[in-house]
């Protein structure tokens, strides 16, 4: 499949074959572009393998797939990975900011929570499109406003009776010890009202991305409340 190309063409460098300020995007020439579109954050895609039934623990099942930092690379990943609709039951994809493990116990998640919605009619839910749109909203940074600082990652769970998509946040609207005095997520300089507004704004945006109707309720719950209740069906702290 390797095209027959000269040495010059196969090894693009910042040399004289093209004028140095000629900007070529993937739209101008998909095979020979020289600039790419940076993401605001680096993102890591993780996958949870379904348990084998041999007593494997969660840490062995949670695998880091790839980390990327450009729009072009995201599509290279997306176009070459198993669609959610073809995954086995008990699989998850997690797309998180680089350096954050998609677990409640991670230091950056342990004070946080999640907005989530279950699609109970699996056949009618266009899960591949829904998950793609949630990922695009995350990497395109359109879920939150400047300096909100709440988004940690997004997740899709494939289960017997439903698909569930979640949006994980850094806080549950409370001050996090050690987060400083600033107007940042978990900081003392952010009022309780603003913290709640930020979380509610995220929930509304998430609901919009999922194209849910007004009557379909998206719920927010804290991770530790979920942990203590022994299930992910903890009572919702907020709803939109």
């Amino acid at each position: 499949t390797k095209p027959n190309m000269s040495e010059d063409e196969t090894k693009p460098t910042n040399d004289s074959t093209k004028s140095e300020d000629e900007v070529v995007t993937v739209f101008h020439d998909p095979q020979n572009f020289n600039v790419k579109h940076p993401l605001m954050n680096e993102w890591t895609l993780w996958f949870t393998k379904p348990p084998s039934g041999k007593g494997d623990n969660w840490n062995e099942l949670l695998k880091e797939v790839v980390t990327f930092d450009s729009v072009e690379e995201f599509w290279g990943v997306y176009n070459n990975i198993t669609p959610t609709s073809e995954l086995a039951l008990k699989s998850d994809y997690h797309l998180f900011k680089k350096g954050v493990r998609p677990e409640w116990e991670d230091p950056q998640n342990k004070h946080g929570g999640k907005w989530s919605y279950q699609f109970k009619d699996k056949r009618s839910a266009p899960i591949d499109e829904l998950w793609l749109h949630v990922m695009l909203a995350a990497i395109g940074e359109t879920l939150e406003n400047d300096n909100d600082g709440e988004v940690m990652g997004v997740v899709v769970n494939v289960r017997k009776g439903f698909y569930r998509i979640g949006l994980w946040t850094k806080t549950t609207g409370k001050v996090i010890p050690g987060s400083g005095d600033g107007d940042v997520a978990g900081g003392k300089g952010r009022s309780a009202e603003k913290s709640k507004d930020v979380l509610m704004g995220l929930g509304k945006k998430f609901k919009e991305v999922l194209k849910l109707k007004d009557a379909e309720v998206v719920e927010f719950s804290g991770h530790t409340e979920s942990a203590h209740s022994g299930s992910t069906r903890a009572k919702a702290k907020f709803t939109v």
Partner: protein
Amino acid sequence: DTTKPVEAAQPTPQLDSLRSARMIQRIEDISYPADIASPNPALNRTAPMGKFRYGKDFLLQFETKFTEKPSINWDARLKETVGDTTEPSSAR
């Protein structure tokens, strides 16, 4: 990775471009082909240099443009992480 696997395939021109391309610093300076909708400038009014927001419609335009595997060892990486769902022909 400092060493390349012996059996590694050559990167395709598209993957070569991905690796060598530089990150766009000033998105307002890019002129896109006529059939491509440019990023919404309203999203990036307060963005720091080289860090941009992108709307869904802009991002979806890349779907058919960058289609190749994002690394030389992608198939092995997928097999190790996501599993065998994608390669029914490979040996078990």
